[in-house]
């Protein structure tokens, strides 16, 4: 009876631990692009996974960093543990305290502190900085798993070995090492796992063109995780599971045999398994890494470093550009304008071409961070519609610094099966009928824009009374809101999780493809019309390549490729004419009427102080 209860309890805990993993495995066979829908069984994602170079690259980077950092941490950590064992108590306590810091410190603080260090030292962020950071947080794990084993070894045996004429090194490897070996192994494995699983610290210390699986996944959260990722994690998980069974099952069977000899032999086979298997793995990884590294460095002299929004370009466009021009693209993604800005400002990383939004471009111009673009190198600018160049003047008064890439509006997406009335006003977001069925944008300016427009004010308002009014309105709305999201609104609306969501027009088109019940509207009070444009930072090392890149993107056939992939409206009028599907070419979501746009405003940069006011008011909303 007692045993059954124990087993049930154990089973429940394991269910809790492995339920999400089972979910992910199931999702990897889901024949639908979003996780919100089950579209039947498929193995496609496994096939596509191996063709997806960026994921495979991220996998290799992750494994190499995990392996190298774990190896180095194991060597340094084991040495440190032995040294600390020999120290007096006081000094050892201090050292242990220091060792505990990275383990206990918030990841975010560790990550930020390392990033600040690298930036202060003008150490350019990249592969090396991730590796250094990972070694730093891995060493404590090794020390803490070797220390207890060291404490259990007897000093006398070691000294006896020395008395019998062994050299210290010989004595160490023959006497101490076998005793602490399990500790070293578990330290190594733990370090490896931690490095593999880390996101936050990597996020802060990585540079352009380098992605680990975690950072890759995070950039994909924006637009929904690619199912290939599920397939990859499933493969990783199954591989590890098989390895573990191989390592653990064999010796435990044999150890039941009483004979000492057998036991000894099983120990040897265990050690072989534990050494040979990881060594083989290491070999494969390193070989693969070198292969990728050499492949990547080929022709690296002629390159362009691109810093763009996540999922904001068709990957085939990049390949095509490389093929046609011979210029290698190093591609890096950001999640919000606010994350991008300090990276450019600090100059820690020199990007060639960046794609910020309107108000952020204004801020960058005001702070003298941008280079004037030489339009002689961009003849394809003629394909960009005049109205968009004119609109750009709101933030780039002489059209000197930016080339429009995508544009769109913000509006309301609603599910016609849950909303029976016609919607034309922001007021629906305050209708108690839809309590817990509303998805609101989780960014300061967008959220305030909705409230300010509803109140009839400008969304660039800096009037404290107006802002306070808007804040109160947002607080009033909060109980009705199901969640504040950025791009997850897409998956949630497709999955019928909510009736109403505030969304970017570009996403609306995609959601309609997936769920025909959804309808998009620009409310009558007006809304935001935004432009994301390409700019070249002042410290860009390859300005001409950057201009070639911008020019390439302005070519109508390329702009069309991008539009079909990302579904955000293109300012490229020539490309718009090329759209074959008439419904989309004339879609009022992608290309709204001029009359609708007249009601809309573009965000302007309001200055650091006003930004701070917005931020603090928004925090009041969020914490209420």
């Amino acid at each position: 009876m007692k045993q059954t209860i124990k087993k049930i309890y154990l089973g429940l805990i394991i269910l809790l631990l492995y339920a999400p993993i089972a979910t992910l495995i199931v999702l990897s066979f889901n024949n639908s692009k979003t996780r919100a829908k089950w579209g039947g069984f498929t193995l496609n994602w496994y096939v596509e996974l191996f063709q997806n170079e960026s994921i495979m690259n991220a996998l290799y980077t992750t494994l190499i960093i995990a392996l190298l950092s774990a190896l180095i941490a194991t060597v340094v950590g084991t040495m440190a543990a032995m040294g600390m064992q020999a120290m007096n108590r006081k000094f050892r306590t201090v050292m242990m305290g220091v060792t505990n810091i990275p383990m206990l410190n918030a990841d975010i603080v560790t990550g930020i502190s390392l990033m600040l260090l690298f930036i202060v030292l003008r150490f350019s962020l990249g592969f090396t900085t991730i590796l250094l950071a990972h070694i730093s947080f891995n060493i404590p794990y090794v020390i803490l798993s070797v220390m207890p084993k060291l404490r259990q070894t007897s000093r006398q045996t070691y000294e006896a070995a020395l008395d019998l004429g062994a050299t210290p090194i010989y004595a160490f490897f023959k006497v101490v090492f076998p005793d602490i070996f399990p500790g070293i192994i578990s330290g190594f494995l733990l370090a490896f796992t931690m490095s593999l699983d880390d996101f936050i610290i990597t996020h802060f210390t990585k540079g352009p063109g380098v992605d680990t699986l975690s950072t890759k996944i995070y950039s994909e959260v924006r637009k929904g995780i690619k199912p290939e990722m599920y397939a990859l994690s499933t493969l990783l998980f199954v591989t590890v599971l098989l390895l573990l069974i191989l390592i653990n099952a064999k010796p435990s069977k044999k150890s039941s045999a009483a004979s000492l000899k057998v036991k000894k032999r099983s120990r040897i086979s265990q050690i072989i398994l534990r050494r040979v298997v990881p060594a083989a793995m290491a070999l494969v990884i390193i070989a693969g890494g070198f292969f990728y590294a050499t492949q990547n460095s080929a022709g690296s002299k002629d390159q362009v470093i691109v810093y763009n929004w996540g999922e904001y370009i068709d990957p085939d466009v990049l390949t095509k550009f490389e093929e046609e021009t011979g210029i290698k693209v190093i591609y890096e993604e950001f999640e919000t304008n606010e994350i991008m800005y300090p990276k450019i400002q600090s100059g820690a990383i020199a990007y060639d071409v960046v794609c910020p939004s309107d108000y952020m471009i204004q801020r960058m111009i005001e702070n003298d961070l941008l280079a004037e673009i030489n339009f002689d190198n961009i003849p394809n600018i003629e394909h960009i519609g005049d109205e968009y160049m004119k609109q750009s003047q709101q933030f780039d008064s002489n059209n000197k610094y930016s080339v429009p890439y995508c544009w769109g509006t913000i509006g309301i997406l609603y599910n016609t099966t849950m909303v029976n009335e016609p919607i034309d006003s922001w007021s629906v977001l305050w209708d108690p009928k839809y309590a817990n069925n509303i998805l609101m944008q989780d960014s300061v300016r967008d959220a305030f824009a909705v409230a300010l427009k509803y109140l009839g004010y400008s969304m660039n308002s800096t009037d404290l009374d107006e802002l306070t009014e808007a804040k109160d309105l947002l607080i009033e709305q909060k109980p009705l809101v199901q969640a504040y999201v950025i791009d997850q609104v897409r998956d949630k609306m497709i999955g019928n999780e909510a009736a109403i969501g505030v969304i970017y027009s570009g996403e609306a088109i995609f959601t309609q493809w997936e769920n025909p019940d959804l309808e998009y509207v620009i409310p009558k009070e007006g809304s935001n019309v935004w432009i994301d444009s390409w700019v070249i930072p002042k410290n860009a090392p390859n300005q001409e390549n950057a201009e070639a890149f911008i020019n390439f993107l302005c070519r109508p056939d390329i702009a069309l490729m991008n539009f079909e992939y990302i579904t955000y409206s293109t300012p490229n009028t020539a490309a718009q004419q090329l759209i074959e599907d008439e419904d989309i070419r004339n879609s009022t979501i992608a290309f709204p009427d001029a009359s609708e746009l007249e009601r809309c405003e573009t965000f302007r940069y309001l200055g650091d102080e006003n930004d701070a006011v917005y931020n603090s008011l928004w925090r009041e909303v969020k914490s209420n």
Partner: protein
Amino acid sequence: MKSKKLLSGPYLIWSLAFIIIPLLIVVYYGFTTKEGDFTFTNIAQITTPENLKALGLAILLSLVSTIVCLLLAFPLAMILSGMNVNQTSFVVLIFILPMWMNFLLRTLAWQSLLEKNGVINAILSFLHLPSLNIINTPAAIVLGMVYNFLPFMVLPIYNVLIKIDKDVISAARDLGASNIQTFTKIILPLSKPGIISGITMVFVPALTTFVISDLLGGSKILLIGNVIEQEFKQSSNWHTGSGLSLVLMLFIIISMAMIAKYDKDGEGSIF
């Protein structure tokens, strides 16, 4: 023995360069303005009502998670330590194995499980049971915390439990102690180092997380970790962000002091 101490040398230099100095930089940012003048205003930011509330809520949720973890983990560790598994590493690996699935993906998977039309509700409605609506509430955040940090509670406790000499327990029994007495007088006091280290290993990361509250709380619930993250990412205000991080480090220092006091020999390590 002198030469042996030198083995710590590389680590000493390493920790100086990559642990101590970076922290000093955070301290510098925390105590200066944008112009580089000395100030307390960054630290004082913690006393604004919103930040205090975020801190309070973070403390509350992480306390609840820690208690839940402890209540779940202790019986679990008892069962595991009594299972007579030859390979302790195997037990450890059962709990570390999930980490090979990316942390963000695992947490996102909970979203799929808990959503209104999610897996759990599909099963519940199939069984004609009332639906479970905890997504985007503090309960979901607690669940996410417990799920992510439970191994850090189980492993230290398991490690102290297997070290308890079976003879001590037999002796207590021989001397007439009941099950409950054996538990409260022998097992519990002896497992204190593990419990303490488990508590800090769960409490601190739970206190400082921002990813879990974002993904499972629908960004409706602001914890102190979210505030700091936003200071760095949305407001690009590194000074205030650093100041608030320093406040958080206070809790870390307290945790370290607790460990130093109750777990002098590092028995309650997680491996």
